[in-house]
């Protein structure tokens, strides 16, 4: 068959195709650098970066359009481990990782490292506990697994509820991020920018489903990692003569330490679990470890990540692909602390204590952008004190090119990278949401006789509806990006981790046990989150404390998760053990070869 040959040609030529693509992108960036030197205005360069990259993604989305169900849902299960790792990397790293994380590290020092640890360590759980077994199970969605393992639509519906809650919170944060970047670099209002960004997201995911999203995400990973590394490598070479920032920022850390002493800062950048007075605090200690735990478990429960491992050719590749995923994610995450350190050193040594009239150019230009950098000469001495400078956490990555004195083309590159990060995650999330609604709710629960064509039409329609609702919610600016993202992690962790892990690793888990566990964990987590965030007075009146054991609500899963496990365990033991048929099914997904013993067959 011609189309099959074409497809396998494409797979075997991936290295050449993406090699050419990378070279093309570098050539394009260099060309813009030359244009900048020839005097082309900055706004034009910004436009070129944003529009050209979005058109490339749209083109890939268009070329990969498909009308085949297995291509649409799982990219035909042909994605090699290495490329699935890249796609997962950009699926995973969102606006929060790209734009905000280094800024968080700048502001919080050691305490901010909870995000770095939590957002990488979760892959160890994915690799050992879940990915290979879900791949062997071999259906289309995460609720598919819950439905098969826990006998029917009740468990499937619970899974869908948790998936919708977590993924929707997450996608709103991404659309919000796309809106911020588009509004800054296109010079349009935030509310309009949100919908412009949305168009970019939809072109990729709507026509070609998982197949288009996969190949776009690989392209987006390449752009985002180049964009993240270029400025900081440049800075490291300039300052210390070695182009490996991850090695050289140790020196920056020591210099920061000395400057902190000189400036009388009590809370050192590298000090662990300290409060504002620079004293060790048990509250910080517990919150740090709780957050690391929730982010790790959340990683292993997010459906849009887990479903990426449905796309590899076999179980062995699924395992290997988790290794590549964490490797590609690691490249960005272990660089982020270097960003933070270089920026802090620059601020402490060339900004603080200087006459306000003669601050570096980048400070002047960023103080013109509302809410990003503010200087208030409180004591009126004309010298900038530390307390007189306020930095927004989103400024660090975006301003590093200017801090390093690099040409504007690098700023455009960073914007393109941030956009790639936000778009790729939004694509993956929207697809997870639309698939859950079209496949799990519509096809499996409402109309099992629906034809493949009809299912694709439903899926595409739902994709647009969900996307528009997400954009509408995002345009109201509900909360900060990191906050929303961390909530999504807690919700997914509390609701999905226990039934998924127990379903594979403990044969005695019963349907009733899993459903009770899933719902109690999810509801406790949701209750803590909503009540402490929106009804703090009521919470204090009822429980006589602001927070249970001082745990902040971004780590809500720390309460939901143990309850989910406990309830699943106890209720399972109280109910009748799963049938022999079910035990055979579990045995069959534990072993890489052989058929899956699954009575409800799909086409």
């Amino acid at each position, binding site marked *: 068959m011609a189309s099959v040959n074409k497809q396998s040609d494409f797979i075997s030529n991936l290295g050449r195709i993406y090699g050419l693509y990378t070279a093309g992108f570098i050539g394009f960036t260099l060309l813009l650098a030359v244009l900048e030197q020839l005097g082309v205005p900055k706004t034009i360069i910004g436009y070129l970066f944003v529009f050209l990259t979005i058109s490339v993604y749209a083109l890939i989305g268009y070329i990969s359009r498909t009308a085949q169900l297995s291509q649409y849902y799982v990219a035909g299960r042909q994605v090699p481990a290495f490329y699935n790792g890249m796609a997962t990397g950009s699926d995973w790293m969102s606006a929060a990782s790209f734009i905000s994380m280094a800024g968080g590290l700048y502001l919080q020092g*050691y305490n901010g490292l909870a995000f770095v640890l939590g957002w990488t360590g979760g892959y*160890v759980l994915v690799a*050992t506990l879940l990915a290979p077994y879900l791949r062997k199970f071999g259906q289309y969605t995460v609720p598919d697994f819950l439905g098969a393992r826990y006998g029917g639509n009740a468990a499937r519906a619970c899974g869908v509820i948790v998936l919708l809650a977590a993924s929707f919170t997450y996608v709103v944060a991404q659309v919000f991020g796309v809106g911020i970047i588009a509004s800054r670099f296109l010079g349009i209002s935030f509310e309009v920018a949100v919908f412009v960004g949305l168009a970019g997201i939809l072109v990729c995911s709507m026509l070609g489903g998982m197949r288009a999203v996969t190949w776009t995400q690989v392209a987006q990973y390449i752009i985002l990692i180049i964009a993240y590394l270029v400025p900081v490598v440049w800075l490291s070479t300039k300052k210390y003569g070695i182009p490996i920032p991850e090695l050289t920022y140790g020196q920056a*850390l020591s210099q920061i330490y000395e400057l902190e002493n000189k400036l009388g800062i009590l809370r050192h950048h590298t*000090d662990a679990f300290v409060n504002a007075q620079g004293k060790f605090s048990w509250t910080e200690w517990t919150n740090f470890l709780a957050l690391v735990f929730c982010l790790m478990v959340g990683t292993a429960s997010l459906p849009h990540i887990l479903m990426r491992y449905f796309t590899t050719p076999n179980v062995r590749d699924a395992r290997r692909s988790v290794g590549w995923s964490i490797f590609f994610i690691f490249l960005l995450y272990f660089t982020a602390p270097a960003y933070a350190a270089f920026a802090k050193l620059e601020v402490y040594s060339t900004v603080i204590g200087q006459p306000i009239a003669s601050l570096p150019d980048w400070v002047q230009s960023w103080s013109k952008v509302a809410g990003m950098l503010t200087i208030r000469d409180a004591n009126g001495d004309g010298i900038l004190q530390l307390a007189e400078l306020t930095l927004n956490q989103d400024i660090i990555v975006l301003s590093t090119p200017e801090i390093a004195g690099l040409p504007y083309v690098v700023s455009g590159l960073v914007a393109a990278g941030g956009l790639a990060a936000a778009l790729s995650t939004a694509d993956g999330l929207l697809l997870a949401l639309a698939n859950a609604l079209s496949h799990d709710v519509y096809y499996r629960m409402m109309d099992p006789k629906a034809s493949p064509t009809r299912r694709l039409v439903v899926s595409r329609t739902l994709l647009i509806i969900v996307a528009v609702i997400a954009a509408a919610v995002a345009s109201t600016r509900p909360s900060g990006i990191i906050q929303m993202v961390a909530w999504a992690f807690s919700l997914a962790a509390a609701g999905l981790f226990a039934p998924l892990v127990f379903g594979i690793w403990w044969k005695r888990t019963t349907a009733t046990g899993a459903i009770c566990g899933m719902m109690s964990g999810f509801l406790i987590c949701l209750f803590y989150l909503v009540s402490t965030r929106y009804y703090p007075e009521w919470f204090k009146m009822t429980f006589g404390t602001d927070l249970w054991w001082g745990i902040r609500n971004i780590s809500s899963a720390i309460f939901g998760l143990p309850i989910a496990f406990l309830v699943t365990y106890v209720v399972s033991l109280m109910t009748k053990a799963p049938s022999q048929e079910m035990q055979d099914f579990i*045995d069959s997904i534990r*072993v890489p070869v052989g058929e899956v013993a699954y009575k409800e067959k799909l086409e």
Partner: protein
Amino acid sequence: MADKTLSLERREAYWRRTSRLMWTIMAIWFVFGFVVPAIAPALNTIVILGFPLGFYFAAQGSLIVFVVLCFWNSSAQNKIDEEFGVAED
């Protein structure tokens, strides 16, 4: 092709080996994900190349361990699969 269905005994042995690998990896994960970060204030008194050791682990060292763990899991599990004849072709 040889019959690849395992006898009950072999299947249980296979799962015991797989579980043992899982618990080993979980233990290392726990140490570098939680124990090392938890004692960071003590480790921070040692400074190498400008990095206080506690900071270094949370920012880089533990991450490297996680990457290695994922690749190691993949190759160790493949060996188990081959030994029991259940690896895919």
